[in-house]
């Protein structure tokens, strides 16, 4: 269906959830109250690594209002350990504490106040063990094994092939090689090498994790702030040895996620406590506890590039090390993807990639918007600017020369490039005024990156129900965490069915009602769940047309639904009339089902990507030479969305992603002092605020309707985060001549680099 004849898709209709959110009527898990609700609080380890000697809970158990005080052994579970990649994380620390902040004892009481008071009476005796609180320490020869043996969870096909390195703290080792490295290095006119560091970050979505769990009969119901209702259902089924059908996971609106609410976190603990006290239990974390639950991976990248004098990339070697913390969570997949995407969106004949996911005694690291791309792009794109400078080439020209073209292969077996990267970069450069004269002391930089979007081997199923009154229910497991997926699915349904947008309602995910969905992450939902919903809508539409054909005595193939009605000659029937006409009463419905199952292919990750999510960024900055403070004047972000289902929401996603890139570029980072998180809350951990909005923040949407998703759509959720740091970094270099290799580029780091440059000592990176 050509874009011009679209009536609902491609239009900036208001969000379905906007009115509730602007009137305060929107309800989140943290607003849920149930009769007899009990409250849980968690005693967390102050030390990063220790052997538990004894948990002393009697005094707490006797405190007023306390219903139960549980250590690991007291939890009524069949399986204590969980995890999407490895089953390595205990619901409560068991025999060994592996990170500072790890839950060790849980208190359940009739009120939050009683639970909080009883918490102070819990004591745990432990013997401290040596802790490895950085990837370097954990890789050192003398480091103790944080997990002597690890058991694969077997939940995800792509994770069945994980390759830990026995006898080390490496829980996933991804390696890929092609071409003749020695030969390429010889042919090169220039070989550049650098080490780049990206800090650990806290997600700090504004709604902290919250779970309400209730055990009823022999089943279990959990309301959770999760992006993965179905994987959580599977994990809970394993923990309690229940059939999947007996576990119900419901996810209302979520107050921001960004990957921090992927997979299983505190759900098993809340459920186990509910099972123990036989009352519904609410476990709501504070912002500080959130920061001690999940983080973005701190990453170091050693990257070497061989290039000819005219700027043709011959070879690239990337050694990527990710600190995945005490428990793997989804770290092994992030490490694999980080490695896979490290070379960048370029035609590079010879590659050697090595990515290691390393256990440490830090807070576990998992998914975070961009999934490894911002970390490796900081390295790869910064180095492209080093090359441009050393060869005297324009950074834009150097990139355009090497960017993969539509149809070219990134890696043998993976989906050919499905977008026009050069067009995107050129539009970005134009928008920032790349060739315009620069005011004195200012600088411009740009960067581009790409990720295999849509998740790996991810599948979605959806149901579209046309009710007897013509209103439509969409049952889809996609979670609304603010990205606007419900609105997008409603637009896709209305467009495909030919019914008014206002008649479509999208249900909240509920694993006992909405069909299976792999999960809401990797920018996949609009594309993959979109295809499932589109197929379900077509299925329902065909059924209605068949019913109408008999009622109108016409050929079904001749009929179509427009604005909720079917016209045939001078006669017309509404969809409602068709359905009730068919059932001969006011009730009845037509139900369509659709699903998306990924094709089989060999690709380096054992599966071809559904689409490529490319992101481009360009920045213009000024620099206060005395304080080192970088002032971001202009940031342009380009996103190839294929076909925007809702243009305003697509641009909004990209602007929000860019702002989440500005944080770690300039000031945002976790400060880890030997395993202790020094800045857990928002007083000492700086997230971007209103005053960080640059005078110009612009998103360029590239729409060539060339995506695999409905109406040519692709995913857009993450690309805005990819390029901010390297674009600002190279703008800093153009403005001042200094180049930083470690984020964030705080004023003090810039000041030190400027001072070192003045004193003539070699700028740190050009070894």
């Amino acid at each position, binding site marked *: 269906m050509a874009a011009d004849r679209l009536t609902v898709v491609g239009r*900036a209709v*208001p*969000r379905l*959830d*906007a*009115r*509730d*959110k*602007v*009137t*305060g*009527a*929107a*309800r*989140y898990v*943290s*607003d849920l109250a149930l009769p007899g609700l009990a409250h849980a609080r968690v005693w967390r380890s102050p030390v990063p690594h220790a052997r538990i000697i004894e948990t002393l809970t009697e005094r707490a158990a006797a405190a007023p209002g306390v219903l139960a005080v549980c250590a690991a052994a007291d939890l009524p579970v069949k399986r204590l350990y969980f995890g999407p990649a490895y089953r390595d994380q205990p619901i409560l620390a068991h025999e060994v504490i592996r990170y500072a902040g790890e839950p060790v004892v849980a208190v359940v009481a009739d009120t939050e106040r009683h639970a909080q008071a009883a918490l102070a009476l819990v004591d745990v005796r432990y013997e401290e063990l040596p802790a490895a609180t950085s990837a370097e320490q954990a890789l050192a020869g003398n480091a103790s094994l944080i997990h002597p043996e690890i058991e694969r969870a077997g939940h995800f096909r792509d994770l069945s092939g994980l390759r830990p390195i026995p006898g080390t703290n490496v829980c996933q080792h991804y390696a890929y090689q092609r071409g003749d490295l020695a030969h390429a290095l010889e042919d090169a006119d220039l070989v550049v090498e650098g080490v780049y560091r990206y800090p650990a970050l806290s997600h*700090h*979505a*504004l*709604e*902290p994790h919250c779970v309400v769990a209730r055990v009823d009969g022999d089943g279990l119901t959990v309301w959770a702030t999760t992006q993965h209702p179905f994987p959580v259902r599977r994990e809970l089924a394993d923990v309690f040895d229940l059939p999947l059908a007996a576990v119900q996971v419901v996810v209302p*609106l*979520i*107050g*921001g*996620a*960004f990957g921090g609410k992927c997979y299983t976190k505190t759900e098993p603990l809340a459920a186990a406590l509910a099972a123990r006290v036989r009352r519904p239990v609410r476990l709501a974390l*504070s*912002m500080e506890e959130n920061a001690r639950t999940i983080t973005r991976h701190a990453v170091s990248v050693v990257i070497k590039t061989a290039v000819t004098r005219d700027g043709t990339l011959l070879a690239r070697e990337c050694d990527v090390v990710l600190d995945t913390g005490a428990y793997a969570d989804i770290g092994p997949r992030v490490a694999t993807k980080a490695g896979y995407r490290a070379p960048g969106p370029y035609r590079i004949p010879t590659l050697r990639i090595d990515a290691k996911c390393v256990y440490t005694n830090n807070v576990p690291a998992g998914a975070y918007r961009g999934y490894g791309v911002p970390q490796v792009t900081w390295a790869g794109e910064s180095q492209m600017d080093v090359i441009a400078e050393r060869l005297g080439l324009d950074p834009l020209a150097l990139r355009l020369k090497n960017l993969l073209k539509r149809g070219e292969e990134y890696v043998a077996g993976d989906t050919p490039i499905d977008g026009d990267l050069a067009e995107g970069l050129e539009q970005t450069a134009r928008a920032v005024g790349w060739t315009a004269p620069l005011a004195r002391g200012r600088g411009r930089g740009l960067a581009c990156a790409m990720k295999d979007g849509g998740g790996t081997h991810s599948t979605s199923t959806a149901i579209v129900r046309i009710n007897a009154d013509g209103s439509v229910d969409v049952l889809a497991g996609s979670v609304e*965490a*603010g*990205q*606007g997926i419900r609105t997008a699915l409603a637009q896709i349904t209305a467009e495909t069915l030919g019914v008014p947008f206002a008649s479509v309602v999208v249900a909240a995910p509920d694993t006992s009602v909405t069909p299976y969905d792999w999960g809401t992450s990797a920018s996949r939902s609009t594309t993959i769940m979109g295809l499932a919903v589109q197929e379900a809508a077509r299925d329902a539409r065909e059924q209605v047309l068949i019913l109408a054909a008999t009622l109108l005595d016409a050929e079904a193939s001749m009929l179509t639904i427009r604005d909720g009605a079917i016209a045939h000659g001078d006669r017309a029937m509404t969809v409602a009339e068709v359905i009730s006409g068919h059932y001969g009463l006011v009730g009845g419905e037509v139900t369509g089902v659709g699903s998306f199952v990924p094709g089989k292919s060999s690709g380096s990750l054992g599966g071809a990507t559904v689409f490529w999510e490319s992101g481009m960024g360009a920045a213009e900055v000024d620099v206060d030479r005395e304080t080192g403070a970088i002032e971001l004047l202009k940031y342009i972000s380009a996103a190839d969305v294929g076909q925007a289902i809702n243009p*305003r*929401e697509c641009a*909004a*996603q990209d*602007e*929000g*992603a*860019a*702002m*989440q890139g500005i944080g770690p570029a300039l000031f945002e980072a976790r400060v880890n002092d030997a395993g202790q998180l020094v800045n857990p*809350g*928002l*007083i000492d951990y700086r*997230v*971007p*605020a*209103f*005053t*960080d*909005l640059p005078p110009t*923040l612009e998103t360029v949407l590239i729409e060539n309707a060339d995506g695999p998703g409905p109406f040519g759509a692709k995913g857009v959720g993450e690309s805005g985060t990819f390029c901010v740091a390297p674009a600002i970094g190279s703008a800093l270099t153009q403005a001042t001549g200094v180049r930083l290799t470690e984020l964030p580029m705080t004023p003090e780091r810039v000041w030190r680099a400027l001072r070192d440059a003045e004193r003539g000592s070699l700028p740190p990176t050009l070894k």
Partner: protein
Amino acid sequence: MKEIAMTVIVNGDKHDLTVPPHETLIECLRDRLGLLGVKKSCDVQVCGTCTVLLDDRPVSACTVLAFEARGRSVRTIEGLARGDDLHPVQEAFVEHGALQCGFCTPGMIMATVALINENPRPTADEVKHYMRGNICRCTGYKRILEAILDASRRMSGASAGNGR
């Protein structure tokens, strides 16, 4: 411990309550009066999701004690719309797509109402300075700024209408 008897007007409705001194305003509004639109996030007065208006001035409900509302008026997000008729700031937020997850939106809107009430036609910089204490992790702030500037134009231009 002596409880404090107090009368407070919340969103126009009079309430006679007795509160212990250690009860915070957010506990009173959410747990006693069921106003779940007031959101708790950072709990240290930084994020602004708990912003409510105390005698039309923006305060952090997480840290202001409930008894401080004695004899005063409190306005929360639930008190802005008139039935189905949204307040201009609410309308502007919807039209400009100035919200995504919505968790910061109630606080963001209440701070905006206070800002426009105090400074009817703020410049972009004045908006940024005033709203520095309202964190949003999803939108990147651009559309919120546009919505605030648009709402301020409408409200000062709007002779009639509910420019409350």
